[in-house]
């Protein structure tokens, strides 16, 4: 007869084996799982809308169809509204491009003259030769990589077809999938696993809402800031910075670099450039020291200092993915750890 404590060890072994198997599978399949992972994320984000539609009396399938229909209409509407605006912006840019190009060329020439005056040992002929060689090499390498590039394009296209398709099935079957997975959980752990899933779900949805709020605030601050100091396309730059801010720190950098580049090309090296840097840094300071610790720590239930540490370590170890997924992953890890510890403590208190 197996005792509860022995049973706990057996269960821990089964869970460890499952985690290793899933880990190996993910490692083995690698990029193939990307459309599936993205679809899972998209379905997770869209699920509350489907459930809201269901509560309004629609069946699950009708709710998903309505969501897809609404999305297609919104996309078409956005294209109809945005294409003329973008077209106008592009025509302005086309008109300004020769001007920008001339300015850039003049600046480069003056830089080159300064450089040659200071370092006469560098001959212009060599410089031109090296530039030509570099350009030829680049074209040759691009031609060599063309089949690979086409394959990547095919993968990209398949992702754009696969993601909506997988998302569709996940949205329709999410409830059955969850119930199916929970049915496989032994009765002795059912309540603990169910409670764990609830807590993880709450944590992730709060984190996601926090990220959206943060991006919105960074976008608004950048747009208002750049527009106030007179940066051309300040609103657009702000929106881009807000969207990219889903990756902490990158949003403000992209916003600042683009704003600085546009300022230099349009206005030149004026005091506005200093203002751009000041706005960018102000947005970053408010984001890093006020918004992120407040929103992220609250939503991920982590101490602000832990959040900053996770962002730094995640970024250092896993790059962009570490920064994006580090905080929610640590938040989920904390919950899973607490649940596992509670089970172990409970069983340790029982007689062997």
């Amino acid at each position, binding site marked *: 007869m197996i005792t509860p404590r022995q049973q706990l060890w057996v269960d821990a072994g089964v869970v460890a084996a499952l985690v290793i198997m899933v880990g190996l599978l993910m490692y083995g399949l690698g990029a193939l799982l990307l459309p599936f992972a993205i679809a899972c994320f998209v379905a997770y984000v869209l699920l509350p809308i489907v459930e809201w539609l269901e509560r309004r009396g629609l069946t699950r399938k009708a709710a998903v169809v309505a969501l897809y229909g609404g999305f297609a209409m919104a996309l078409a509407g956005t294209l109809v509204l945005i294409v003329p605006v973008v077209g106008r912006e592009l025509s302005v840019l086309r008109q300004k491009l020769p001007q920008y190009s001339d300015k850039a060329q003049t600046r480069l020439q003056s830089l080159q003259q300064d450089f040659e005056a200071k370092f006469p040992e560098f001959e212009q002929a060599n410089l031109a030769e090296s530039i030509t060689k570099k350009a030829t090499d680049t074209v040759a390498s691009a031609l060599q990589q063309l089949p690979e590039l086409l394959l990547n394009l095919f993968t990209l296209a398949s992702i754009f077809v696969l993601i909506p398709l997988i998302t569709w099935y996940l949205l329709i079957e999410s*409830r*059955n999938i969850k119930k199916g997975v929970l*049915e*496989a959980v032994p*009765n002795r752990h059912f*309540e603990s696993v169910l409670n764990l899933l609830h807590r993880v779900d709450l944590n992730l949805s709060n984190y996601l809402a926090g990220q959206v709020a943060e991006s919105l605030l960074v976008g608004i601050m950048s747009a208002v800031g750049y527009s106030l100091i007179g940066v051309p396309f300040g609103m657009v730059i702000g929106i881009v910075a807000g969207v990219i801010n889903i990756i902490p720190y990158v949003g403000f950098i992209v916003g600042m670099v683009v704003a600085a580049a546009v300022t230099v090309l349009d206005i030149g090296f004026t005091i506005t450039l200093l203002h751009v840097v000041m706005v960018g840094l102000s947005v970053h300071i408010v984001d890093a020291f006020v918004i992120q610790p407040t929103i992220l720590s609250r939503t991920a239930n982590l101490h602000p200092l832990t959040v900053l540490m996770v962002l730094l370590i995640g970024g250092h170890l896993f790059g962009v993915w570490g920064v994006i997924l580090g905080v929610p992953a640590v938040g989920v890890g904390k919950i899973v750890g607490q649940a596992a510890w509670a089970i172990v403590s409970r069983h340790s*208190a029982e007689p062997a």
Partner: protein
Amino acid sequence: MNLDAIWSKLFGKGPAAEKTLGDYLSALPLFQGLSSRELRALEQQVYLRRYADGEVIFREGDPSFGMYIVVSGAISIERRVPDERRIILATLLPGDFLGEMGLMDDAPRSATAVAKGPSEAIGLFGPELQKLTQHHPDLGLKIFTSVGRSLCSRLRRANEELQRIPRAQESVVRGAGHE
């Protein structure tokens, strides 16, 4: 849990289930009077669990997350007494429910529930009931009222039992005095 059941749940293939959760729910006295729409909403939030003979549903001292309603078989409610013996407080049959205090507070389970023979129970848990109440306030109110009524009747019975104890003690004392 067999593979067919998982397959059926995940992909909608495999042998058809004999009875749906909705069928089970509509037959339970606790959910009498719910409309078909309310039953459908409730069906999405509950879990049907199957237990083998002697399998523990929950243990005394475990954290409590929700309640179970017996659908088939029987479930006994047991408590450990100081000399390590277990006493059976009640045996619950189809239609009865257990663990309802777990819906009301976060206190640990006050007793152990064990299946007597192969049994089935429907589990309704706190977070799901919360969600249900947020989205369907009328339905949430009906469920809480039903559970509250049952708790009241149990409390009343417990009070009656308590009232009987001093009388019994009194008659024991009186009897001893006569001897």
